[in-house]
């Protein structure tokens, strides 16, 4: 009984034995199809599989895959498998493939059933919530230590963080705020022109920038510029075992890494928000005066009339809250970073996304509170 298979592998059955005859070069062979076919052909009374060489020529990994599969199939069915007729190097490689001395001890990428996955995810969320609360609590107690002069925060770290998020951010914050004021004025002017009320562009830009836009733009810039840098710096420290070193030295990671960054942002953010408000108003004035030909003095008169201390303070308060959010999200993502390069990228992205989401949530909450208070 003889059946031809593709290329040069031939299957033969003799009573209780099964021969696989290698009758020529085996290159780019479809090993999966061969093994499927073999499983069908292998009747239950077979007790031995023999590899027989009949002019074996060139071979590649697909032949090894066939041999590896056949030896494995034979082992799983308790069938003897004789590969002694194969070239020495082929036998060595198959032996090497089966010489792995360790079995996986945990699931790897195993898919969980739906309910188990749901339960696991719920527990993960609860654990993460608890971790965040723990982190916020630690920050609270670190701030307490700072105001009672018991903190180990280094002054030089605070100064470096303040320089980074203060003076070094002025350029980008000024440019973006100027452009946002300009855009606000443009969009508003087109609508207001229809009613001949273009002079109110000054009021629109002033109220818009001071109340919320200035703070939001600074928040977004600083989340991308400073929050991500916090996450990347602290994440890299995790990869380099510097966080482990701090922990084993008994030094508080919060005092040492989080506190200087948080305090720096708490100081810088309100100041940057005021700068953004001012630059936005200049941007609006640029459009009003140079492009809509509004009288310069008239423009600023309307702008100052629209300026309201409550709006201004609400904007600054937004900036203050955003500072907390950016520092917390950046440092939390960094401290919970994994121990490889990829994790640093993930932590950096997470810090920006988390900061922006929480800034929007905070804006919503502050807006509702202000509405209730009539501010």
């Amino acid at each position, binding site marked *: 009984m003889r059946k031809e298979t593709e290329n040069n592998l031939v299957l033969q059955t003799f009573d209780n034995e099964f021969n696989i005859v290698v009758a020529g070069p085996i290159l780019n062979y479809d090993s999966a199809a061969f093994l499927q076919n073999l499983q069908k052909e292998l009747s239950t009374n077979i007790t031995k599989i023999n590899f027989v060489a009949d002019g074996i020529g060139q071979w590649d990994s697909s032949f090894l895959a066939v041999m590896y599969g056949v030896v494995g199939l034979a082992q799983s069915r308790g069938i003897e498998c004789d590969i002694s007729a194969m070239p020495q190097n082929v036998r060595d490689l198959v032996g090497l493939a089966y010489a792995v001395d360790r079995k996986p001890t*945990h699931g790897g990428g195993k898919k969980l059933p739906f309910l188990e996955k749901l339960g696991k995810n719920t527990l993960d969320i609860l654990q993460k919530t608890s971790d965040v609360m723990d982190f916020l609590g630690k920050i609270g107690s670190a701030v307490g230590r700072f105001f009672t002069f018991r903190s180990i925060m280094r002054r030089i770290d605070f100064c470096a963080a303040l320089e980074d998020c203060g003076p070094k951010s002025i350029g980008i914050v000024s440019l973006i705020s100027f452009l946002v004021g300009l855009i606000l004025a443009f969009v508003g002017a087109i609508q207001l022109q229809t009613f001949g009320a273009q002079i109110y562009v000054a009021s629109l830009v002033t109220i818009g920038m001071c109340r919320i836009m200035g703070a939001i733009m600074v928040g977004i810039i600083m989340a991308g510029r400073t929050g991500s840098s916090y996450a990347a710096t602290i994440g890299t420290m995790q990869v*380099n075992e*510097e966080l*482990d070193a701090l922990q*084993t*030295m*008994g030094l508080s990671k919060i005092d040492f890494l989080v506190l200087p960054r948080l305090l720096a942002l708490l100081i810088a953010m309100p100041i940057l928000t005021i700068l953004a408000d001012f630059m936005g108003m200049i941007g609006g004035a640029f459009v009003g005066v140079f492009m809509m030909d509004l009288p310069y003095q008239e423009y600023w008169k309307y702008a100052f009339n629209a300026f309201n201390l409550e709006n201004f303070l609400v904007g600054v308060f937004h900036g203050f809250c955003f500072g907390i959010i950016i520092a917390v999200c950046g440092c939390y993502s960094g401290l919970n970073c994994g121990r490889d390069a990829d994790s640093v990228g993930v932590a950096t992205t997470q810090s920006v996304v988390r900061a922006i989401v929480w800034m929007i949530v905070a804006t919503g909450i502050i807006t509702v509170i202000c509405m209730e208070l009539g501010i």
Partner: protein
Amino acid sequence: MKNEIAIEAKNLSVGYGDYVLLHDADYQVNKGDIFIIMGGSGCGKSSMLRVLTGLIEPLKGTVIINGVDMVTAKREEVQRIREKSGILYQSGALFSSMTLAENIMLPLQQYSDYSPQTIRELAELKLALVGLKGFGDFYPSEISGGMKKRAGLARALALDPDIVYFDEPSAGLDPISSHNLDDLIIEINRSLGTTIVVVTHELASIFAIGTNSIFLDANTKTIMAKGNPRELLKNPPNKEVSEFLTRGEKKK
């Protein structure tokens, strides 16, 4: 001093969550020993070190360091023991924003009452001890890998520790630098009487410095052998230890 116990692990299980790397480990490290934790990749050597240094909690059992149970003791007591321990990480783990001297001064500033001038002098001394005299104002990015490890060792020695832990000290070093670091470890052990715990799988280092050891096995998740590495090489208790200590050369 030789027979006093520095570290004692009792019924210690190490792992992460449900995943156990090593179970029911019992061993002792005598004061003044250079104790090697060895074994193949993935056997839990570094995790064992993380348990000893308090970076992770054991799944079960306890670690007693200088008579203090590190699992149940009060935080202040654990902190006191930690202050008397130094660790050299694989990468050196120097703080990149600080100079070498500042790195070494940090633990001194936190845990000693010395004047700033004395702290600076102590930092220079520790750097000189590890062969880095005059490098105090260099940043970690300005020195080589071997020098980073030496600087990391200087920081580990800052508070005159009773025990110094080394995580793969030879990793990433050329043979000569590795040999020099081994000599330094022996010198510190001899002259300061410091107990040394080294996690490594570098055979040259194991035989050069080890006075006592445990061999961890990833398959059985147990301690498969204990004793002086040179003695274990002469009389291996089993095939696994023999193969490990002879670089897998099976007897024919």
